[in-house]
């Protein structure tokens, strides 16, 4: 397993649990045991948790897996024909089966190398930013995606003055739709965030963030949260297909005996009939498990066909979403009230239910709609009767 986070760990555990007794090596470029990333922009940044809460397994549980852990060392190359992975310390690790789970890294901005600039991907990133936030500190967040929006909310909770800069007119519109994006924008306004949409950022500058029109948005700290880049550089020239991530088939295979899992892998999800690359926590685990099973039982391989899931916490709004919402054709609020920030919305792609997103709704209702996604229910049957006027 190359990648020492959720996907690599899930693959290792699944291999062991399902009977693999041979050697297993887990390679990770961070010096830590596998840990959980979603709390970084939530409880860790907010100070409710200390770092001892984020390891995914206890040292005893890891010991029991019998792994050779190579942490704090990055993979630098892959020899497909020779079946070896080259590491930054000069070691070459041979393999019979390979799981590539090297994740993503933050996209950067010009000028973001200085003291005041931050990204938020690793535990060290989160702790460094947390140390610099507090009452009266001015934080500019570039990018109002889930990460930027969550960090903005947490920073407000710490008393910081927050400016949230977003190039699109409505935050998160491609991910959740315009109406729900506006609802979230409203939550940030209500909590005193200075949300500026439709602004283009040029660089992190002395004193804050420089916009392309020359304006300086003053800030003591700047968080750059403008998306991620798959960590595939070490695979250049290996013969594997690289595009937006590591290209995999419906079994999540990139080559015979070589599988991709987690944020780095783009694969064909037959449930939705489309290729996708999912940067959500649950997918990392599910894909790690799936590729482990396909590696173990090459004659009984199964396509990886999950219903993706994510959640996001912003103030008292907890968003839960199941399905593939991107590229949706229509959003319908079928229960509750968007204004009250308690609702259930469903998403249509083509003539099928593609996803459900809920805030503050009973879990049974959410699970029922998730089932409609999992069975790719016809939109007309599932939603048509609820919305006779097509609201």
């Amino acid at each position: 397993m190359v990648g020492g986070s959720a996907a690599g760990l899930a693959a290792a555990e699944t291999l062991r649990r399902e009977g693999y007794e041979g050697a297993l090596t887990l390679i990770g470029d961070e010096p830590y045991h596998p840990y959980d990333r979603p709390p970084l922009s939530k409880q860790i940044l907010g100070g409710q948790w200390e770092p001892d809460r984020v390891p995914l397994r206890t040292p005893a549980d890891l010991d029991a897996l019998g792994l050779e852990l190579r942490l704090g060392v990055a993979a630098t190359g892959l020899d497909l024909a020779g079946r070896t992975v080259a590491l930054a310390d000069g070691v070459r690790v041979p393999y019979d089966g390979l799981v590539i789970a090297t994740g993503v890294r933050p996209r950067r901005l010009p000028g973001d190398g200085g003291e005041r600039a931050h990204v938020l991907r690793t535990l060290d990133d989160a702790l460094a930013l947390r140390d610099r936030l507090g009452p009266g500190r001015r934080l500019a967040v570039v990018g109002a995606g889930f990460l930027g929006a969550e960090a903005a909310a947490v920073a407000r909770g710490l008393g910081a003055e927050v400016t949230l800069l977003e190039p699109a007119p409505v935050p998160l519109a491609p991910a959740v739709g315009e109406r729900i994006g506006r609802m979230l924008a409203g939550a940030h306004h209500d909590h005193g965030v200075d949300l500026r949409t439709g602004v283009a950022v040029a660089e992190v500058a002395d004193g804050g963030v420089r916009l392309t029109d020359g304006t300086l948005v003053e800030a003591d700290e700047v968080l750059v949260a403008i998306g991620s880049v798959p960590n595939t550089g070490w695979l250049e020239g290996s013969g594997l297909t690289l595009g937006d991530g590591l290209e995999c088939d419906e079994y999540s295979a990139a080559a015979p005996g070589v599988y991709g899992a987690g944020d780095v892998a783009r694969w064909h999800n037959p449930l939705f009939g489309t290729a996708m690359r999912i940067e959500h926590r649950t997918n990392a685990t599910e894909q790690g498990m799936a590729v482990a099973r396909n590696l173990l039982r090459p004659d009984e391989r199964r396509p990886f066909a999950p219903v993706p899931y994510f959640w996001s916490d912003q103030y008292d709004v907890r968003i839960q979403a199941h399905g593939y919402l991107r590229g949706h054709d229509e959003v319908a609020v079928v229960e509750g009230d968007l204004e009250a920030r308690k609702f259930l919305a469903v998403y249509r792609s083509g003539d099928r239910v593609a996803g459900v997103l809920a805030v503050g709704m009973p879990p049974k209702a959410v699970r029922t709609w998730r089932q409609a996604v999992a069975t790719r229910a016809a939109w007309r049957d599932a939603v048509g009767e609820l919305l006779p006027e097509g609201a």
Partner: protein
Amino acid sequence: MSGEGGGSRKGEGEGKGVTMRVEVDVPKCVASGQCVMIAPDVFDQNEEDGIVVLLDEQPAPELHADVRESAVVCPAAAIRVVEK
């Protein structure tokens, strides 16, 4: 997790003679409901906020594979399984 029993595709009678204890770290739970979808006899969700409710701390052997799967899939890593 000692790995005894081998393949854990669902419904196999593995785990005989193994006792399982399930622990949930409730403050970690994010109410995803993944565990309820996989092992509805062992987990439920609070109607109010969707937070996990543990129905069965010592599930029967035929449920063990599903419980292990729930623990691994939990997006908040809030489920821990102890097997002896």
